[in-house]
Every structure is written in C-alpha cells, then in structure tokens.
C-alpha cells in the first residue's frame, strides 16, 4: 500500500500552491484519478485524512473524479472507451487497443482556497 505516500504528496503539492497564493487554508482538493494509475480510491481517502493532520489542509476534503480508460482504436480510427481494465479492447468493435490515451491520471486539477 503506497497510498499514504501518495496522499502526503497531494498534501505537499496543495500546501505549496495555497501558500504561494497566500491562502490561510484549503477547503477542497480536486483530484483526477485514472484506473491505470495504480492508486485505490478508498485507500487514498483513508490516507488523506491522516496526511492532512497538523497541516494547512487539516479538515479539508479530497474530491476524487474517477475518469475512464480511453484508447485509440486502430479499427474505428477514433478515441474509444475500452471494455474493462481486464480487457483492453475497443468497447464498440472489440479490437485490442495497445495505445492508451487516458486512464493513468493522478493529478490535482483544482483547489478551493479559504480566503
């Protein structure tokens, strides 16, 4: 389980952003999470609370947006969803899709800063 160290990285990143903008605190951290990031949402939420303790982010909320896997389908010639993480094939036509375009995200997209 590496979610605690991931959570600590999120807290560090958000703290630096908040400090550089002179905010006294953070209410919400928005995070984009892809299924291929290797990070489990529940474990991350649990770790986040611990990582926030005694920081500027204490009491803040981690809002996770889970995004789907998107691949380039060589048959359709378009961006497509895949059947599942266990079956990386085009959801429309079933062709295997080696080229993954989205789904590895582990990104802080926005912060709601206290004024």
């Amino acid at each position, binding site marked *: 389980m590496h979610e605690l160290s991931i959570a600590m990285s999120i807290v560090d990143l958000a703290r630096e952003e908040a400090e550089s903008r002179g905010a006294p605190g953070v209410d919400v951290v928005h995070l984009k999470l892809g299924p291929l990031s290797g990070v489990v949402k529940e474990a991350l939420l649990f770790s986040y609370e611990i990582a926030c303790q005694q920081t500027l982010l204490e009491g803040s909320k981690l809002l996770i947006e889970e995004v789907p896997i998107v691949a380039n389908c060589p048959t359709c010639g378009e961006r497509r969803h895949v059947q599942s993480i*266990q079956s990386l094939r085009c959801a429309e036509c079933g062709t295997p899709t080696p080229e993954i375009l989205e789904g590895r995200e582990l990104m802080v997209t*926005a912060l709601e800063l206290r004024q």
Partner: protein
Amino acid sequence: MTLEPRLVQVRKNVLKQNDVIARGLRERFREAGVLVVSLVSSPGSGKTAFLEKTLTLLQPRCRVAALVGDLATENDAARLARSRAPVKQIITGTICHLEAAMVQNALDGWDLNDLDFLFIENVGNLVCPSSYDLGEDLRFVLLSVTEGEDKPLKYPTIFNSADVAIITKSDLAVVVEFDEGAARRNIQAVRPGIEVFRLSAKTGEGMTEYLEFLESRRTRSRASASV
C-alpha cells in the same frame, strides 16, 4: 464575514517530483548508451534467479550491473554478486516500491559510461511499483508458472505498465499443470501486443531468445543515442 472559497486551477501531476527525476535519469542513461531494464513481480516469482542468470550469461561479452531493491537484508545483492557483476542493494525500509530518487542515489559513484546494461530489480510487489517511473528503457513483468494464469487479470495495472512479460520457472510448468495459452491470453488482454518470453533460469530453457532480444534492443537504443 466569511468569504466564499476561491477556486483555483492547478493541473499538476501528484508524482511530478518523481517524474522529473526519472526524466533526468532517462536522459543520463541515453547519453551513456546504457540500456536500463527494471524487473517487477510478486515476491517469489524468481526475479533474483532470473537476474543472476542474465548477469552471468551477459558478463563475458557485455558490461553489466544491477541495483536490487528490498525492504530488508542484503541477501539478494550477495546472491547477484556471485555473477561478478557490480551490484548495489537498495534497502527501502518500510517503503513497498522503488522511487526514481532511490535509483539516483544508488548510482552515486558509478560511471554509467562503463556499462552496457543496468538492471533494476524492484521490491517484490505487484501493486505499488506500477505508479513510479524509474527512468528505465524497458520494464519487465515476471509471472512464474506456479502463480496461476489469472494473475494478469488480478493485477492489470502493473502488467499494463510493463513493456515485456517473462513467464519464469518453465521447468515446473508440467508439474503444476500450467496453462500457458490461458496465461498468454490474460497477459494480452491487459496489455495488448506485449512481447512475451517463456524461460527457466534453472535449466536455461528460453534464455537464448530472450538474450538475443535484449542485445538487439541495446543496439537499437545505442544507434538512436548516437544520432
């Protein structure tokens, strides 16, 4: 009066720090013309035996070295040192995976220009290492025949992050009734198009094809480095 919170756009990768170090490493490896291969697998799938055999077979004609990560003990480094290649142990303590900074620190004092191949054996773990780029050219994921053919479906993320899959302990395949067709189908389902090798570090079966692949990749990367 309480002010409304202010929404600011950030868009920063959480593992940016690791990614920056990994990019720097990749550039150093490219400049030195060394092919860097990392190994990931569950504990006990035969990473160290496979690596020891690889180092021993490459040693007569290539300059090879290895970094090996474990939570504790220097046992693996001692085993790998029998190949006479330079080996360094990275002890991660409580951390369940290697990070780019650990690789960078471990390389201190080594001249990469003296190497043709560098192998990095990750901590035995099929979950956490998938998130961390180490600057490697190729990531090998190992699956031993004793583990069960559906492991790729249970750990799709790590298999998807790999460039090559190696089925190890092929000498035991018959005894454990390993269904190679099913294993290959499952690997391809989570990582379409991936190259798969089947071998035994113990008997040497399949090692020749795999070593030829390694050397051809190195020739390719060296050619692109000199451009």
